[in-house]
């Protein structure tokens, strides 16, 4: 008896692309975004003003830059909680360099470079020493911001050159800011990286089963290290934009932003345990969070209450599909 192939034909897929789209998390999230948009438009007469809307994008652009890289990191089963502290350290490094008359290109280089170095530091601790990333980055969160506090105390760096203000205050065309342009380009770039490249496939494989990924010839530690580098770099970029927009550096810059970034990623449908999630989801989540914050701001809701709303939104959106499944049973 030989194992002659029976020629059993296997179809590629059973579900069509449209079918899967209809049942996707992203579509649900998009519906929520539209609902919030309509609600805001009815609740406040100032909402449907293009310049107000343009201003509102600052609520999420810097966070989203980090969230894209964080999404990949979380899909791969790791996390970086030091991103906001990296912003503080990168901003401090730029402000420090400013004292020696470094120009705009140099400042940007220093901001991005500091981010990369911080990412590399996290990456080495996680991949070389095999420490859990949540512990490592809680540690470096205090470390990076601590350095900022030592350097600055209760002082602030000011006096950034006018050309530096372009990143956080400039416009590309009409109402479109430089930041929203960077955001859009990054959204496309990260979308392609995660969904259309070998690297992205490796990220999913590692997040689903790091052992089997290793046994399949994927260079697991290298991929993870690159992801920490990318997250550091994006934090450096966010530091450039945020510092440029504020025009000054204080050690408390971006305080608590890491949780908003993680919230954005999880709201976007990325499994916090790794293995699944999409960049389009994170993009829509960024808009949802931006719209909620802006809408509540127009209604003069204080910041503390806003964070309650964001928290409730996160839990609500996560729990909704589960509830539906339970009710159907």
């Amino acid at each position: 008896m030989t194992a002659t192939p029976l020629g059993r034909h296997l179809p590629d897929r059973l579900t069509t692309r449209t079918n899967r789209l209809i049942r996707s998390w992203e579509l649900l999230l998009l519906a929520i975004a539209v609902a919030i948009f309509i609600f805001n438009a009815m609740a406040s007469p100032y909402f449907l003003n293009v310049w107000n809307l343009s201003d509102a994008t600052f609520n999420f652009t810097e966070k989203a830059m980090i969230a894209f890289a964080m999404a990949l990191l979380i899909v791969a089963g790791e996390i970086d909680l030091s991103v906001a502290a990296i912003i503080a350290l990168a901003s401090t490094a730029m402000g420090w360099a400013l004292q020696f008359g470094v120009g705009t290109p140099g400042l940007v280089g220093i901001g991005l470079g500091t981010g990369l170095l911080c990412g590399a530091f996290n990456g080495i601790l996680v991949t070389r020493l095999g420490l859990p990333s949540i512990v490592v980055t809680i540690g470096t969160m205090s470390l990076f911001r601590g350095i900022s506090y030592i350097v600055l105390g209760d002082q602030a760096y000011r006096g950034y050159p006018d050309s530096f203000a372009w990143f956080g205050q400039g416009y590309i065309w009409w109402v479109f800011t430089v930041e929203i342009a960077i955001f859009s380009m990054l959204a496309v770039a990260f979308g392609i990286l995660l969904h259309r490249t070998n690297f992205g496939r490796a990220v999913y494989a590692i997040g689903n089963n790091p052992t089997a990924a290793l046994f399949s010839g994927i260079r697991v530690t290298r991929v993870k290290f690159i992801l920490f580098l990318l997250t550091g770099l994006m934090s450096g970029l966010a530091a450039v934009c945020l510092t440029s927009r504020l025009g000054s550096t204080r050690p408390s810059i971006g305080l608590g932003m890491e949780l908003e970034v993680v919230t954005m990623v999880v709201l976007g449908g990325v499994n916090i345990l790794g293995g699944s999630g999409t960049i389009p989801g994170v993009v829509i989540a960024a808009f949802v969070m931006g719209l909620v914050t802006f809408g509540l701001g127009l209604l003069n809701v204080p910041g503390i209450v806003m964070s309650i709303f964001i928290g409730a939104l996160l839990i609500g959106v996560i729990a909704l599909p589960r509830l539906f499944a339970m009710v159907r049973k």
Partner: protein
Amino acid sequence: MTDVPILALDNITKTFPGVVALDKVRLALYPGQVTALIGENGAGKSTVVKTLTGIYQPDGGQILVNGTPVHFATAHDAAEAGITAIHQETVLFDEMTVAENIFIGHAPRTRFGLIDMARTTRDAKALLESIGAPLRPDTKLRDLGIASKHLVAIARALSIDACVVIMDEPTAALSQKEIEELYALVDHLKAQGKAILFISHKFDEIFRIADRYTVFRDGQFVGDGMIADVDQDALVQMMVGRAVDQIFPPRTHTPGEELLKVVGYSHPTEFADVTFTLKQGEILGFYGLVGAGRSEFMQALFGITKPSKGVCRIDGKIIVIRSPADAIAAGIVYVPEDRGKQGAITAMPIFQNVALPSLGKTSRHGFLRMAEEFSLAREYTERLDLRATSLDQEVGNLSGGNQQKVVIAKWLATQPRVIILDEPTKGIDIGSKAAVHSFMAELAAAGLSVIMVSSEIPEVLGMSDRVIVMREGRMVAELEGTKLTPETLVRHAAGIEKAA
């Protein structure tokens, strides 16, 4: 013996996305009798166990306890009804004592509602004695071997006064002596009037202890009856739906030139001085007891762990293997023993699993080309007669045998020169085994060199051109031709000196 089954499944159907796992099956268990559930991988045995223990709820049909329909909404309901299962890897708590494990969830209480430790220990001791288990109630479970853990699980089953005991391949990890002790215990349970469902792939076992049999195939009921009325061939035919005329394929092909040469591979703790050659188209068996260092050596050869010294040559050229990626590039691939953890990424679809190590080939400039992945996956999975609904199906939804096919397809797609198969047929049924064996022979005949790690003597003897025996991390013998007998294998593996 009564005619009313204590537990019965009537026309039970269970479907998963794209798969009918159980299609109107029936099964009856009688008090004081052992019923063997027999079937190939994917026949639906595990699904039946999960349905009986309340983990899955059937989509159709009913479960009858003493003739009365019942519904198990949770695992707790099933336990209440007196159904208990002993799994391949027993689900117990390593950090607790034997007594705590036996009585967890229903420990005797003091009048203040606290756990009565003295009575727990006393009752546990009595239970263990009643089944002849030489265990102390205060031993931590992590200090026990698999066999002793089974005993604890059985004591636990008795403590909740279970009327149905399900044993899912209980002997898989046991030694011959421990297996005999388990048989004695099964007889003891029978004498107490318990109904036992015994799931096993080993026919000698089934004929040794079962009174009845039920056969499933592809999620359907095929037949049942008394063991006394059938023979092995008849059961095998029911299982596979065809006659298995020959267990091992004939090997007519002679190995070619020397391909792989390993010299002095050593590891600080696991193995030392492993030296051998492998010819093109040869099947080289690695035999030894569990823990002899065979898998550890193979994983070093595949780049998972680093050897402390040693040289590996392919075609006479030295190759340095620091990672699996290096090994794959050199044409060495490894099918691990643990499919679910190391072999396949179960949450990802079939085509992505198959293409994973071949992404360099299917992509262009680092960008994925899905169409290429699908055609690669189709080519190799169809050669292996994979049973799935589509190439987009998650590997986790396939049966164990089919998951193994996905892992093998994944490696063949890289067009390797050496394939290492670590216990390739462990835990799979006779039909699938024969398919894997004949496929292995085909691969060797086509010029692929095969290293097969196996602990099953018939498989080692039936498949290998040459066999290396390892013991305690060292090669102790290299056997071929007339020297290759069951006796010599066992002698060398166990370290018994030459026959007097």
